[in-house]
């Protein structure tokens, strides 16, 4: 079947089997290998991308379901020469070891910071009717869909905390 995907402001035409996940479409059909495959079951967050500005697990959705959506992958967030502020902050804080989960962490945190700016509460927010400051507990809860098997969590939280402080 045919799908037309808009990824990082470029249009891609895809001829694919209906079973193709959005993750496999990105990596195997379109060569956008920045998005990583970890568990392929929505448990690890390595495949996190943004669809219409919202973070999702690209392994748990079909490419054919996203005809016309605005997709942003790690390649659209920054490049080695022109990193996003959050990417630079990850480097400043040494917020990774092997780096495999990092594209997913960056995409997830980019969207999470926007969610917080819009006043979304979380499971650890005391007063659901108020916006919460991004404490370490808030950051950990909101990032719990992204695993890091090297366990670089303290530095990931520190990097995100710095970004949250700069943008609030």
């Amino acid at each position, binding site marked *: *079947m045919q799908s037309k995907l808009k990824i990082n402001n470029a249009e891609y035409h895809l001829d694919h*089997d*209906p*079973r193709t*996940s959005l993750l496999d479409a990105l990596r195997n059909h379109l060569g956008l290998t920045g998005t990583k495959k970890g568990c*392929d*079951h*929505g448990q690890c*967050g390595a495949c*996190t991308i943004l669809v219409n500005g*919202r*973070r*999702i*697990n690209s392994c*748990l*959705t*079909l490419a*054919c*379901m996203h005809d016309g959506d605005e997709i942003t992958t790690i390649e659209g967030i920054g490049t080695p020469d022109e990193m996003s502020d959050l990417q630079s902050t990850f480097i400043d804080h040494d917020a990774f070891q092997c780096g495999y989960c990092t594209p997913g962490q960056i995409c*997830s945190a980019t*969207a*999470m910071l926007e*969610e917080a700016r*819009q*006043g*979304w*509460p*979380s*499971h650890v*927010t005391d007063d*659901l*009717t108020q916006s919460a400051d991004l404490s370490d507990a808030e950051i*950990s*809860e*909101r*990032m*719990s*869909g*992204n695993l890091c098997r090297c366990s670089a969590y303290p530095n990931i939280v520190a990097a995100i905390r710095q970004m949250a402080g700069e943008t609030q």
Partner: protein
Amino acid sequence: MKTFTYSRAESQSDAVQSAQAGTAFIAGGTNLLDLMKLEVMTPDHLVDINHLDLKRIEETADGGLRIGALVSNSDLANDMRVRTSWPLLSQALLSGASGQLRNKATTGGNLLQRTRCYYFYDTDTPCNKRTPGSGCAAQGGFNRIHAIFGTSEACIATHPSDMAVALRALGAKVEILRNDGEVQKVPLGELYRFPGDNPEVETILHPGDLITHVLLPAPLGGTQIYRKVRDRASYAFALVSVAAIMRLQNGKISTARLAFGGVAPFPWRVPEVEDLIEGQAPSPALWTQAADLLLQDAKGQGSNDFKIPLLRRTLAAVLEQATNGADI
């Protein structure tokens, strides 16, 4: 994954008419695709319903909300009306899954998600829910996440939703567009079936029936608490959960609504426990009586025996917290 054909529904009637046996509706897809990858679910045809006009949360004439089945778990949890007037629902939603999954998962899909029983997921083992008549490997196997209420000889699986537990306590109804065009509204508790001899049939829905909305009655007020006990602090299913809505008047409990998750094949509610509590003054002795009544038919399966005392203590903690303040 087995092969399937795919189509997009342009209208609700288009969706229900294009569905036959072997067809699955796909909305968020976070549970369905997971199960399709493992070949636990093998639909022949997927009808993509994401383009239907079911993404709004509307206020109803009786002061409640009519929630479109495609409203994402994030949007529902973050709706300021829900956060303010039905906080139990926001709490439950925010305690479930991850940020990524809540952005995709829908209101209708959350209700219809399948059990996380290990053996249901493992196609090398017997499972009456996955392969009717093959047996139940959970009985006598690893069953620490399994049910203590409503089980049958064929199945001891739990329903994994947090959202549905809150909705049951809140008295929500489900609006269904039947395959023949009839619209039906049923209390959430009546959507689900006991496993009995046919645990593969989990709801009253027939092929092609579509959940279109969830209806919330007017706010009940009071203190609303969703307490979820799990193996880790985030991104895990409930071992047990308690949803409570409690109102006090003149030192007595005037309203009690309780539902329980992680313990039964669907969100569990025992009205007799609510009747026992209402009209009484809060006290630890009353919580003990309530737990005795709730748990009188509880049945452990071995590894999940701990759920019986855990539910007793969680219920007491929630009731104490919910009534430990001024009259509301």
